[in-house]
């Protein structure tokens, strides 16, 4: 089967994020970069599905040429093809990003065949727009469900290949069944992504990165500036420095009415 994973290069989560002087971008001078966490799990999921069912995994990203680092990483953990959708900025709005990705995917499919499954992260760790995958699926006319934490495949005699996908909700799961070709937005927790092997590292160095130039009109959402929220200042009351603090803790619980 053919699986396409759309990934995004983002500053490593957990770092303190600074903003450039003009406020229009993240200051990346002292930041490490990584693949957005949900998408790391998407790549792992795709690689596992191909290991069991045969086929190949194509990773695709839209952004500056720096994002080749994340494409190569995906190859080092099992993807076989890598495509950079070359854009002049990392800060395209979601409408424009999705339109360019849909066009690039259509171009790939025209020459290499249809993707049975496309995986996106539920949302990117940085911009958090929650929509690029949904828009791409709609543009390509494929069913799409977000928030997926479990994926199983089976072949059905009448409908062909079917994906059973689970979404975690409060206190349980929703189960969806989509016929391929389809699109899923996945979340961290789907699996534990593997580390690259030596062999994987070697193939990632050798893999040829295909390039498609990104082409789409800007959407109507325009960034004015990025800024940090005002820091919350809390006076922390220290209740103690050992187990003798327990009565004071329980007093607090009693006061809050949770006892």
């Amino acid at each position: 089967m053919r699986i396409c994973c759309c990934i995004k290069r983002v500053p490593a989560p957990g770092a303190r994020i600074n903003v450039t002087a003009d406020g229009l971008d993240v200051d990346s001078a002292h930041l490490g970069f990584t693949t957005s966490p949900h998408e790391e799990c998407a790549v792992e999921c795709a690689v596992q599905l191909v290991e069991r069912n045969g086929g190949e995994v194509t990773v695709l990203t839209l952004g500056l040429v720096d994002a080749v680092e994340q494409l190569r990483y995906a190859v080092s953990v099992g993807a076989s093809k890598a495509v950079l959708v070359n854009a002049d900025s990392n800060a395209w709005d979601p409408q424009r990003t999705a339109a360019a990705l849909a066009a690039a995917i259509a171009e790939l499919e025209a020459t290499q065949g249809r993707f049975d499954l496309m995986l996106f992260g539920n949302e990117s760790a940085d911009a958090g727009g929650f929509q690029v995958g949904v828009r791409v699926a709609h543009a390509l006319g494929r069913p799409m469900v977000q928030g997926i934490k479990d994926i199983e495949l089976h072949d059905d005699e009448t409908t062909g290949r079917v994906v059973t996908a689970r979404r975690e909700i409060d206190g349980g799961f929703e189960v969806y069944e989509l016929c391929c070709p389809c699109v899923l937005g996945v979340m961290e927790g789907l699996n534990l992504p593997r580390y690259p092997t030596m062999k994987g590292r070697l193939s990632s160095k050798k893999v040829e990165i295909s390039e498609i130039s990104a082409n789409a009109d800007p959407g109507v959402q325009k960034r004015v500036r990025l800024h940090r929220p005002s820091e919350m200042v809390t006076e922390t009351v220290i209740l103690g420095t050992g187990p003798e603090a327990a009565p004071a803790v329980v007093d607090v619980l009693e006061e809050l009415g949770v006892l």
Partner: protein
Amino acid sequence: MLLVVVEHDGNAVVEAGLEALTFGRALANRMGADLHAALIGADDDSMIEQVGRFGAARVHVAAPEELHDYSPYGYGAIVAALVAELDPEAVLACATSRGNEVMATAAAHLDAALVANCAEISPGDPWRITRVQWGGSLLEDVTVDADVTLLTCSLHTVIAAPGDTENDLEVEYFDVGIDDMAIATMVKDRVVLEAGVTLPTAPVVCGGGRGVGSAAGFAQLEELAELLGGRVGCSRAVTNLGWRPHSDQVGQTGTRIAPEIYIASGISGAIQHWVGAMASKHILAVNIDPEANMVIKADWAVIADLHEVIPAITAEIRSRRS
């Protein structure tokens, strides 16, 4: 007119749906516009009544029979059809996973902008919006200049509260066709794993981080959580170490909690974790490091080894109860 898409679970409007109505009421006021609500996939008198109490002047009920459960495409297509029919200036939902998904689908149908996770919205020409990035550690100011703007308001930005005045609620039934894609993406089955209190709704969450030391170390937190009718949560480091399932993870890539009190033990409070915990009404940190981010941001702290403090708290609760 502002149209609010009201989220429900099939039985009642959920808290996030009431938050969207509360947020929407203030926004409609600033717009000088009427507040309408959309109830999709449910024709239920008590839900309709609830929507009225939260300030909607008119509710559009769209509950086609074939759509007997949630369908992202089905719900999104109905929102798009409502926009085409009613021509609202803006459409708002709460930024839950379902809210964002339905609005993204509607936006794709309409080829309109969706500004997700908004914290502040100033209508005008253009609209000026502050939205949450990085799960809350960065804000983005954007402008949108469009015929219709689709918005989701960040979860827990407002506390849900009914309106001051009682409206005469008009109920309109919106007749809409359902296509194959709506059926194809509809929920096929539901699996209930646990009844009762869950992590997002627990009044008390006992969180543990790397400082807990091992999977077995969580037993003390389990005991305390059970005693308080709460749930155990954990940091991303803990799920990555395999000590707890991912469903227990509090954070940007896990669950957003909003308990009355969050007892965070052995958690340094990295941004990834903090954004999942910051809606907690109160925080008590237990940590050996007085400089830990979690301690600095907490209302109360105990600077000590959690494996000594937590059993002492449990024992104190037991002795007061007996």
